[in-house]
């Protein structure tokens, strides 16, 4: 599934998961892409809704810690002080990935992502 996503999305204006470092073994737990509205023309949240309208479940893993009110009120953290974490948290989307996905399911995900970004 991971490899098919990599191939299908290579030409799309998304940031794809980094390749694993040499000597490491990737858990393939979450396939996350970054949706940058300035590049794609669609916001991350609109992308989430678009996938949902195609009946494809998506998630966000995760917003950056300073985005959460607890850390803002308890420690005074501000998302802007952690710009890279903030950016990733506001752009990241987790696509379906599971050993139980059938090839047709993967086609559905690939087609929906492509349709939203064309």
């Amino acid at each position, binding site marked *: 599934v991971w490899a098919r996503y990599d191939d299908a999305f290579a030409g799309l204006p998304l940031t794809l998961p980094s390749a694993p470092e040499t000597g490491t073994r990737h858990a393939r737990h979450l396939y996350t892409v970054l949706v940058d509205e300035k590049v794609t023309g669609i916001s991350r949240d609109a992308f989430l809704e678009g996938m*949902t309208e195609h009946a494809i479940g998506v998630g966000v893993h995760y917003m950056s810690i300073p985005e959460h009110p607890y850390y803002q009120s308890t420690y005074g953290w501000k998302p802007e002080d952690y710009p890279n974490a903030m950016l990733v948290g506001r752009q990241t989307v987790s696509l379906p990935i599971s050993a139980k996905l059938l090839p047709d399911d993967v086609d559905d995900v690939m087609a929906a992502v492509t349709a939203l970004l064309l």
Partner: protein
Amino acid sequence: MIGSFLNRLTGFLLPKRKVPASTYWEQRAETYGNRAVLNLVHPPEAYDSITRKQKEEIFPLLAKSLNGSERILLDFGCGPGRFTADLAKMISGKAIGIDPVQKFIEEARTRSLQAEVEYHVTQETGIPLPDHSVDVVWVCLVLGGLQGALLASAVLEIERVLRPGGLLFLIENTSEMKGHAHWTFRSAEDYLALFPKVTLQDGHSYDDLGQRISIIAGRKLS
């Protein structure tokens, strides 16, 4: 394999009629379960903590807004009944949850068996209650999901079932953001203007993922 992908892509790219709100929410409930009622940016495991936080933010204000005479509360768009049973306790009376999504109502019924709580599946926004039969209408993050004729119908139905002097308690996302096909962001002023028969006031707001959630409440004119 490529043919299959292209067929699907073509299908997704064909212009589609906008699905009715109830169909969209049925499908969303099927895809996400109870989490469908939250902002999708929240991870699934946050369902309970978000609900708890909402209660902490909202319930004290509701308690202040009640005058002690209320006995019947309508939870309009109750979803899986996250608040309904607690609301019945707060008024020491009966809470009636309604929602067009069958899956949510089934879930709500499994969570709450008290005689003081009942749930009904409704068709779109019609409320199966007589005129002036409700003391409180609670609407938590529901109207943002309604537009056009559906929104107008919801407003009329809420005003119809709320008794004169009854309390309308709205919680809505008032962030200045661009919406999408099934969610509209409106200002607190927009919500005040929606209900001419209710003296609504924009009372308090809290933050959820950087978005402003406003609590707007008031009593229906006698």
